[in-house]
Structure formats: C-alpha cells, structure tokens
C-alpha cells in the first residue's frame, strides 16, 4: 500500500513519457497486478523476517516482546552448549551443538552429493532408458522429507533394517546397531540419507547442463584427437562448471534448512542427548516447546539465514 502511494506520487514525474493520462493508467495497472500478491508476500514472508530481525534484540515473555536488550540474545545463544558445545568439539564427541553439527552436515553432504550427482549425470547421459534411470534416482526428492526420515529409521533398524542386513551379509555383523539412535554415529547415518535424496536433484541439474552442450563441440574435440578423459576435462567440465556453483549453493541451503529428517529420527530433541540436532530443530524447540525462548529462536533462525544469504546473493549476481 505504501507501494501504491509511491507509484501515485510518481505519477506526475514521468512527463518525459508524454501523456500523463497514460501514466496514471499504467500506475493503476501496476497496482492491480502487484498489490494483492505483494501484500500477502509482505505480511507472511517479509514481515516475519523483519519481525525476527528486530525481535532478536529484545527480551521476550513467552510470545510477547518486552524490552530492548541489545545483543544479549545473541551472546546467550552462542554461549549455549546446545548451539556450540566447545568442550565436546575439542574432544570430537557428540553432541557438539546444533550449529557445529549443521556445519559438519554441510561439509560432508555437499561435496559428496555434488560428485555423485555429476557422476550419475555423466553415467546416464547417453544410455537408453536414461529417463527411467534418472526418475528412479530423482524419486526421493519428490517424497515428503518426513517420509525420508522415517524410511531412514526403517533402513537403519537393527532387526528390520536392510542396511544392517547388508552388514551381516558382508560379514561385518559386529557393526550392526540402531544407527539413528547411536549418538556418536547417528549424524553420519542421517547425512548419508540426505545425500541419498539430494543426489537425484544434483544429477538432474547436471543432466540438463550436459544436454545443453552442443554435441558438435564434443565431436569437434573427438576429431581434434581428445580421448574421453580430455574431452571431460577440457570441454565438458568447463561448460558445466557454472552449474556446480548452483548445485553447491542449493545443497548448502537445503542442509541449513534440514529439519524433517532429524525430527523423524530424533524428535524435537534432535536425537539422544541432542547428538544430531540441527539449527532448525533448535528454533522449533526454543519457540514452541516450553520453556519458550523467542529471543533465542529468532537468533538461531537468523544465523541460518546469515550463513546462506551471501551464497544466494552470489547466485543472484551470476545472472
């Protein structure tokens, strides 16, 4: 609505375009097109973000904003062992705090799923039935993530789980355990699940980048005498490299938002003794489970955004 005011206010200023009646008509049209959508967008997306940004500097009584406390919430949050647990980090023992665990997830998940996605895109690129193969790998990405979490629970179950059965078959029976409930390894088990889902998405992005390469470039390289490895290194890779930035950043965004999988496996605690909690889980617990701590919830959610925002800006800059 401030937008409409703004546009109406500018109405007279556009004399250069000529007929002022034309401008008025244009301004009204703009308002009609923009205002309904942008209002909802403002109220339910931008507004709450601003609210959180402001609220993170205030003290809270449950859901009610109290007084300005400066960086108090921020300091408190970063000292909270649930977010960063320095002592356990030094001993490399879980729980290390949601922020650390979330970042560890990024470090493992993103490179592996990127490489797997690229590898599969290359593998499937010229096979017959590639559409079916790709759909099979991509299927996980269309399934509700909460189901993914439950499937992981099932896969890693000591009795009914196919993963443990696999261990028994290859003679590693001593490793059999309930993977999602063992504090020191559970996070890796869940990261593997995340990779399982995201590889399909990365493969899709790489596949479309590969199919956008003019086949005559590859043929030209063949005639020039390049073997499969040189063709990949000199032609294919440089041409799909820009997609890698997108793949990596989308991966980071996805992992920083991960919530459902952890919730399914470990509830709102984020596993036994919070051993694989992530930032999203901490926000939920702080905001909606007693004792309610809106200030901390807002700080943690902002941290999630701050980690991702520069990357998103980088993607935006690329275009």
């Amino acid at each position, binding site marked *: 609505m401030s937008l409409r005011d703004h546009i109406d206010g500018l109405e007279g200023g556009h004399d250069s375009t000529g007929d002022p009646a034309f401008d008025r008509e244009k301004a009204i049209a703009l308002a009609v097109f923009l205002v309904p959508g942008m209002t909802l967008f403002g109220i339910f997306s931008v507004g709450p973000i601003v609210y959180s940004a402001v609220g993170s500097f205030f003290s809270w009584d449950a859901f009610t904003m109290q007084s300005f406390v400066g960086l108090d919430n921020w300091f408190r949050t970063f000292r909270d062992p649930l977010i960063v647990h320095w002592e356990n980090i030094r001993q490399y023992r879980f729980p290390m705090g949601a922020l650390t665990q979330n970042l560890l997830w990024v470090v493992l998940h993103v490179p592996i799923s990127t490489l797997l996605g690229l590898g599969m895109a290359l593998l499937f690129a010229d096979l017959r039935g590639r559409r079916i193969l790709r759909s099979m790998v991509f299927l996980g990405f269309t399934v509700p993530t909460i189901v993914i979490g439950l499937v992981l629970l099932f896969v890693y179950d000591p009795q009914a789980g196919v993963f443990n059965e696999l261990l028994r078959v290859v003679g590693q029976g001593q490793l059999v355990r309930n993977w999602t409930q063992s504090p020191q390894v559970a996070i890796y088990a869940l990261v593997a699940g995340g990779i399982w889902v995201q590889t399909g998405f990365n493969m899709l992005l790489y596949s479309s980048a590969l199919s956008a390469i003019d086949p*005559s470039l590859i043929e*030209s390289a063949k*005639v020039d005498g390049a073997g499969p490895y040189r063709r990949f290194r000199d032609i294919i890779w*440089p041409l799909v490299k820009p997609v890698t930035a997108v793949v990596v950043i989308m991966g980071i965004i996805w992992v920083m938002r991960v919530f459902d999988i952890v919730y399914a496996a470990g509830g709102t605690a984020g596993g036994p003794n919070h051993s694989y909690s992530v930032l999203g889980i901490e926000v939920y617990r702080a905001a909606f489970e007693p004792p309610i701590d809106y200030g901390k919830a807002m700080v943690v959610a902002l941290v999630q955004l701050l980690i991702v925002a520069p990357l998103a800006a980088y993607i935006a800059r690329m275009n």
Partner: protein
Amino acid sequence: MDGVSKYFDAGETVANYRLDLEVADGEFLVILGPSGCGKTTALRLIAGLETPSEGDIYFDDECVNRRSPSDRNVAMVFQNYALYPHMSVRENIAYPLKIRGIPPDERDRRIEEVTELLHIEGQVDKHPGELSGGQRQRVALARAIVREPSVFLLDEPLSNLDAKLRQEMRSELKRLQDELDITTIYVTHNQEEAMSMADNVVVMYRGTIQQIAPPEELYARPRTAWVARFIGSPPMNLFRGTRRNGAVDLGDAGTVTLDGVVGSDLEADTAAGDVSLGVRPEDLFISTDPPTDGNAIEGTVDTVEPLGEYALVNVSVNDQLVTVKVSDAGVERDDRVYLTFGDDDAYLYDENGELLTRTASAKTT
C-alpha cells in the same frame, strides 16, 4: 603422402546407399545435394563420427572403419563452427596441438602462422562469443588447418554467413586450398559454392551419388534429369514427349528430330518410349515466326520477367511452363512463339531420368 587415393564405399540405407567415391590427394571435392540427401552423413563417415553399416572406408590403402576420428588425422569444420566457448581464440586453435602433445614453442609458431594466413592475428585473445560470424568461421578454419591434417572436412561452413561474406570466404577458401594443397572434402547445398570451388563435384540425391564430375562437365553434361534440374539457375527445361522414329513427339507443340541432338542414339532410332528433352533456358532462342529449318517448339508467352541484365520469358508449352533466358524480350503475354535451340545443347533423358548417351560408334556413322 604420395600416389594415394582414398576409396570410400559405405552403405547405410536411409542416409547413404552404396556410395563409391574416390578422392585424389590434394583434390578439392565438393559434395553437393539438397538438404537431407545424406551428404553430411557421408562426411561424418569419413571423419569417423559414424561407422559404416556396410562397406569399407580406406585412407590410402588402409581400412579405417574401426579407427576413431582422432586416429584418422582428419580435421573438420562444423556447420556451427563448434568453437569451444570457454576458450580464447588462441586456446581454441591450440587445442588440437595440445592434445597431440606438441611443445608450446612449436604451438605458438604454428598458431602465429595460421592466424596470419587467415588474418585473425588481432583476435587471438578474444573469446568466440565476441567475434563476428566471419571471424568465427576463420577461427574454425584456423583450428582445422593448424593441425596440418591429411584430410580437411568442411560441413556447410559458409551457410551461416551473409551473402557478401560468403562470397569473400569462398574465394579465400579456394586460395587456401590451393596454397596448402590439402585434400579437402566440402559439403554444401549451394551449387554456386560447389561450382566455383571444386575440382570435382559429387552430386548426391536421396542417399546416392548422382554424378561425379568437374563443374564444367556437370553443367555441360548432366547425367540424369535430376542433376540437370539441380545444376543451373534457372533450372533446365525438360519437355516431356514420346520418342518414335528418331524424333520426339511433343504433341501440339511440334516434333523434334533427334538427328544431331547430343543425347540421341542413332542405333536406337527405332526405340520408342516416354522421354524428356532437356534444354537450358540460356540455350533456347525465341522467335515469333516459325524458323525455316531445324527444330522448333511452339508455345505461348505466359509472363515476362525483366531482370535488367537479361530477361526471363516463361512460355507455356503443352501446359508446361518453360523458361527462356534472353537478353531482350521483345515479346508480350499471349504472343505465339517458337523456341529454337542448337542440337548440341539438347539432352535426352529416358523415363528413368537417365541420360541417353550417343556411343562413339554412333558418331562416326
């Protein structure tokens, strides 16, 4: 390479059917045909981007069917140039050399040579995206030439350029080929390009070779009615008629005796059947009075198209439209006219479209 010929025989039903083709060393061969006739497939077979389903391809005396393109020492210029967009011009040209492990000094020397040859010295540090169509074309050529390949393959290299540039590049390509003396196979659908550059032209139609001949011969002696219509602009006129008693009966338009006609065969004077009599528009003369001797075809003027340098007169002969190229029309619509031609300029094709040849013995008779 010396004393060499390449023997090429491939069969691929849809694209190419049993092609026999031989290219001499240093020859400039143009494969000419309408789109979809299989000429590009033929080129890709030579390059090794396709494998023949039948038949063998020889380089010198060696069968290269199973060899990969990189082992054939061929260079190819693609229709869209296929310049690597992420490399500078210099890197593009250097790429085939780099792959072959040629040391950097040598590489630089050869790049310099070839860029000078093609007048693109100023562009070496640019990326393909910054170049004009003609410059890209030159870079693609440079990348192919720098290799010093034994065969140089060009797939419609000029089709993406505008008319003026195309003409320029045409003569440049011809010059380059003369200078470098590399065996060149050039694919095009543009007959002007083919005629102006080739040592030999291969005319292809629906996957087969219609005729292999030097440009002059192609024009002067098209082997089939199809080639006759394809080469030359406007295309050759074909009068449909029936052959009997050493003459072609054109119905109401008159009768043409075959005595001196190039394609006639005295031996077969008694032969009968449906034939086509072909005469090029530029070999037809037009007159309003019936000529006293020789052959004449009667018709009515349909339209006159003055084109400055010359005029085209479309004459309706037995419901067939015939084009005549004259320097000065002098006739008008609905005029009754007679078309005459020299016996040497007429060709006779049988119902299959094959040229009926006069045997040497027939000539002496």
